[in-house]
């Protein structure tokens, strides 16, 4: 079973936690990411998650392998939702079991941070205003001028001017 998975159903945290049980584990830490009702000043009503599944599964697995190499943990698992989610729904779950608590917390933190930065998953927020936007995509796009902005009105007229010299 892959240690990084997707589901389009509610995440079954009890079943996932059972997979981490180990006689040598003295503790377990988990992180749950929930859908929040606001982001960057906008009231959020629901979210849609979309993934490039083939690559996301590979990259997610690499993160969990790195976590286990970096911290002395027994088991680690990450499950991410895709599809449409409402407020307070769980979007992601990370669980780690280890001999001692310190590395369980550290590994859990490492995994969620890396997943957010590296795995090709996208989140579209739908706002109370009726608007919607892809998180991390819309603002950087707005900040960067598009090629075509280099050619304001009159570009086509350039042609006329050019030919009129005849």
């Amino acid at each position: 079973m892959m240690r990084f998975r997707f589901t389009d159903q509610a995440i079954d945290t009890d079943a996932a936690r059972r997979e981490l049980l180990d006689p040598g584990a003295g503790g377990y830490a988990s992180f749950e990411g929930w859908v929040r009702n606001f982001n960057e000043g906008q009231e959020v009503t629901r979210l849609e998650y979309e993934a490039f599944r083939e690559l996301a599964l590979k990259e997610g697995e690499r993160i969990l392998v790195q976590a286990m190499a970096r911290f002395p943990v027994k088991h680690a698992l990450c499950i991410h939702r895709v599809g449409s989610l409402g407020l307070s729904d769980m979007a992601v779950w990370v669980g780690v079991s280890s001999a001692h608590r310190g590395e369980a917390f550290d590994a859990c933190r490492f995994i969620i941070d890396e997943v957010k930065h590296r795995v090709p998953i996208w989140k579209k927020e739908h706002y109370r205003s009726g608007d919607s936007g892809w998180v991390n995509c819309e603002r950087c796009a707005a900040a960067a001028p598009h090629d075509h902005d280099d050619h304001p009105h009159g570009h086509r007229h350039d042609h006329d001017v050019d030919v009129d010299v005849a």
Partner: protein
Amino acid sequence: MSAAAPIQGLVLAGGASARMQRDKAALVYGGKSQLDRVVELVARHVSPVFVSVRPSQSGEPARARYPLIVDSIQGKGPIGGIRSALAAQPGVAWLVVACDLPFLTDEVLAGLLAERAPGAGATAYSSAHDGLPEPLCAIWEPQAGAEIDAFLGTGRDCPRKFLINHGVHLIEPKDRRALDNINTPEEYDRALDLLAPAARGRGTQLMQLKIQYFALMREQSGRSEETLETVAATPADLYAELQARYGFTLPREQLKVAVNTEFAPWSRPLAPGDAVVFIPPVAGG
């Protein structure tokens, strides 16, 4: 209404190319002059195809290879060339194409012909830049002739203004870059880059790639996947090509790219059959 007039091709090659400081019709892309490229392109859709020239150009060898329509109305720029064609062959409609549109494709001309409205004076694309009519890749109907005479009579000669003020049938462009024209050496250089490597005369091999689109890229391209033929040698070339086609708002610097479901550098050489995915900024968790 009577049946639509027969349609012929008119390639406008009478410009002075003042700012290019070289004959724009003679600029070479992929080993072929722009005049030859456009005549071939138009001839795949309508025939015969004539080349519109000023009287002083009628003996010029590159142009004289083709049937010519010599300007009977001079000093009026492209609208003079169009009017001269309408006058030379009354009752004929013209698929008019300028010689400085290096990104023009068969799809663009086919779209124009499919949407032709013979009852309007002209059928034209609206500009992807400002929504106004693009007069120099358009179908001009016979009945526009008299209206052009009246327009010229008022001292005006901008074909775009003419279309704005007369009954033009406007259609939406599907490819945002297709009608970008080039006027300067810098724009020519940039066009060569965008058309590279075929236009630069390096490997001219067209190859088939499979592209998948996710999230913002899917919404902006209007599709979740496609198979396309391209001369793009690297993901960077491919993104430039598709950004121009679909108007992707994200600059390449904000993206990553995957080839065959693995992250890849932008300079990775592409091979036929490769599957490419552009990865906008991620937001898991």
